[in-house]
C-alpha cells in the first residue's frame, strides 16, 4: 500500500484520487431490496393467486430463481396499477379465469400455452393473458436483483448491466 501510494505520487496522481474506485460509490440499497411494495392493483388474495400463476409459469430451475423468489408478482402489480386500461382489463379478466380453472390443476388451466407460436398471438382473451403473463413473469424474474445475485457467479452477461441515460432537463 505504502509503496503504491509513493508510486502514485511520483506519477503526479494524488493517492486519494488514485484509490477512488468509480465503480463502487457509497453502498446504498434500493427500496425493493429491503421491503415489500404494497399491492395497488390486485387485492391481497388475488395477488396470491397471481403469484401462484407466476410460480407455475416461471418456477426456480437449476439454481435460477423463479418468479416467486424474484418477487415478480409484487413488481407486476405495481406496473399494472399504472398500465393502460386495456392491459389492466386483460389481467383482471385473465386472473379471474385462472382462479377458476386452476382448481382443476395447473396443466388444465394452462393448456392454452401449448398452442404453437404465431405472430398475431392467441385468439381468446384468456390465452392472450397467459402468453402476456408468461413473458412478463419471465422478464420481471430475469431483471430482478435476486436473479442478478444468483447468476453473478455463473456469467457476467446475466447481471443485466446497461448504459442508462440520465434525465435531461
Amino acid at each position, binding site marked *: 500500500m505504502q509503496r503504491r501510494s509513493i508510486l502514485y505520487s511520483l506519477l503526479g496522481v494524488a493517492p486519494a484520487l488514485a484509490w477512488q474506485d468509480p465503480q463502487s460509490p457509497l453502498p446504498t440499497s434500493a427500496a425493493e431490496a429491503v421491503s415489500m411494495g404494497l399491492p395497488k392493483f390486485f387485492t391481497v388474495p388475488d395477488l396470491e393467486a397471481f403469484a401462484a400463476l407466476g410460480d407455475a*409459469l416461471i418456477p426456480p430451475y437449476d439454481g435460477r430463481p423463479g418468479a416467486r423468489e424474484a418477487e415478480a408478482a409484487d413488481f407486476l402489480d405495481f406496473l399494472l396499477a399504472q398500465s393502460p386500461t386495456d392491459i389492466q382489463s386483460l389481467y383482471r379478466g385473465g386472473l379471474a379465469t385462472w382462479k377458476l380453472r386452476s382448481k382443476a390443476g395447473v396443466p388444465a388451466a*394452462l393448456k392454452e400455452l401449448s398452442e404453437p407460436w404465431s405472430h398475431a398471438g392467441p385468439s381468446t382473451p384468456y390465452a392472450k393473458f397467459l402468453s402476456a403473463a*408468461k413473458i412478463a413473469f419471465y*422478464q420481471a424474474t430475469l*431483471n430482478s436483483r435476486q436473479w442478478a445475485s444468483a447468476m453473478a457467479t455463473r456469467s457476467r452477461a446475466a447481471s443485466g448491466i446497461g448504459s*442508462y441515460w440520465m434525465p*435531461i*432537463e
Partner: protein
Amino acid sequence: MKTKYDVLIVGSGASGGMAAHTLTRLGAKCVMLDAGPLIDPEKQRVLRPVADLPYRGFGKPGRFPHVTQANEFSANMWADEKQNPYSYDPEDPYYWVRIRLVGGKTLAWGRASWRLSDYEFKGKDHDGYGDNWPISYADLAPFYDRVEPLFRVSGRMEGFPQIPDGNFLLDDSKDSECVQRFLASCRNAQVPTTKQRRSTGTLASSLNLLLPTAIETGNLTLVPNAVVRELSYDRKTGRVTGAHFVDRISKREFHVEAKAVILGASTLESTRILLNSNLANSSGVLGRYLFDQFYVKNIVQAIVPEARGGKAPRTLMGGGGYIPRFRNLKTKEKNFIRGYAYDFGSGNSPGPQYFNAYGEELWKKLADTQGSGFNLTAMGEVLPRYDSVAHLNKQKTDAWGIPVLHLKQKYTANEFNMAKDAMNTAEELCRASGFEILAKHWEMVPPGESIHELGTCRMGNNPKTSVLNQWNQTHDIQNLYVVDGGAFVSGGSQNPTLTILALTLRASEHLAEEMKQNKI
C-alpha cells in the same frame, strides 16, 4: 442590431450537421438552431444494473406508446411524446420516433450505410411506377465518395449494381461456419450477399464527426434549445429572411435573420415548419408522398441444430451479413414491383415467446437453444403514394404552441405481397442451410417504426409536382433549401442516412456557389 448570418441551418442531425460542416468550411457564417439541448453522451450515460431501475427495465407504462425501441435504459434520450404530440386516424397508426438533442437521431442510429443506385434514382424508367429523381447515381456518386471516409464506413467491395461499392474501410473478417453455410445456400439460389456496411467508431454522430469541425472554423454559432416555429418571408423579394423560434425552457420568442435558410429538422419536422410558414407549396404536394421502408422484424427465427444444448464449437456461431435487393432487377415478379433486403445474424437466444411451453419445460427449451439462433429481418421498399400525407392538425399544438402534424400512411398489396415473398424465401434459404425453422411471419411493424420516414418535400424537375429542384432548393423560394429525407423521391430498401448526407453535401456546395455568384 443583431448579426445577420449568411445561412441559418435548422437541425443538427445528419443533414443539419453535414450542411454546417460543408458551409462553414467554405467560409459562410452560419447559425444553427436545434430544438434540443447539447449533451455529452459519455457523461449523460452511466452503467446501471437493470434491477436498480425503478421499473426493472420495463420503463414507466405508457410513456412511449409509439417508440417500441425505447426501454428504461434509453427512455430519457427519446423526444417526449406528451410534449411533442401528433395525430393519425385510429385505424392507421403511425409510429413516429424522434430524438430532440443536438446530434439528432445520429446519436442512436444503427449506422447501416448503403448507397442508392439507379434502380431508385431512375426507378420509373425501370418499371414505370412513380417518378424518377431529377438526379442519377452518377450525379451523387462523387458525394458518396467524400461522405464515406468522414463516417469511416466499413464494407466489402462486391460490384453489385443495386448497392454500388464505395470508399470503404475494407471488411475481410472471417465468417462463422453457420454463416458460411447460409452464404452457400444463397449462392445456390442466386441470392446475393455481402458484409454489413456500417459507419464505425465509438460514436458515429453528427455530434462528434461533423459539428466539431464546423465549430473550429469559427463560422458556426450553435443555439441549442431553439424550437423553430416558422420561417419569416419578405413578399417584396420573394425570399425567406430567417426564422421565429421559441426557447425550449423559458418559452421566450425570438427571431434570427439570415440570407439563406437550410432546413434539416428531419423528414417530417422540416415539412411541418414549411406548412406552418405557409411557404414553398405552390405545387400543392408539400406533405404528400410520405413513405418509409417496411420492416418485418425476425421474419424467420431459425435454430442451428448443431448448436443446441450449448454444444456449438467456437467457430460455428456468430456474425451475420446482408442480402441486398435481388427481386425485379433482371426478371419480373408476378405480384409486386421493386424489392426488399435482409439483415441476418446468428448466435441469438430465442425468447420464451417462441416456445409453447411453461415451467420447467420452458427453462429446458431456453437452455437447449441458448446461442443457437439464426434470424433474418426483412426491409422492403414502400411505394411513394400521393395519398400518403402529412398535413397540419390545427386543433392540436405541441408544448410550445406550434400546430402538430396529422400523419396518414398505410401499406398496401405491393408491400404485403413482397413481405410474403420475403418470408418464404428466407425460410427456403434457412432450410437449405440445414437450420430448423422455429417461427416465421410476414407482419410488418406500423409505418414509421423503421425510423426511415422519407418524402413529403420531394425533389423533381417539374415545379408543379415537386417542392425541391435537383439541388434541394425549393422551386418557389431561391434562398430556401430542405436537405433531410423529405427530399427523397423513392427510397429502395437501403437505410437512407448515407444518401441524406451525400445530398446535403451536394446541396450545401450549390448554395455556397450561388452565394459566391451573388445570386442569393
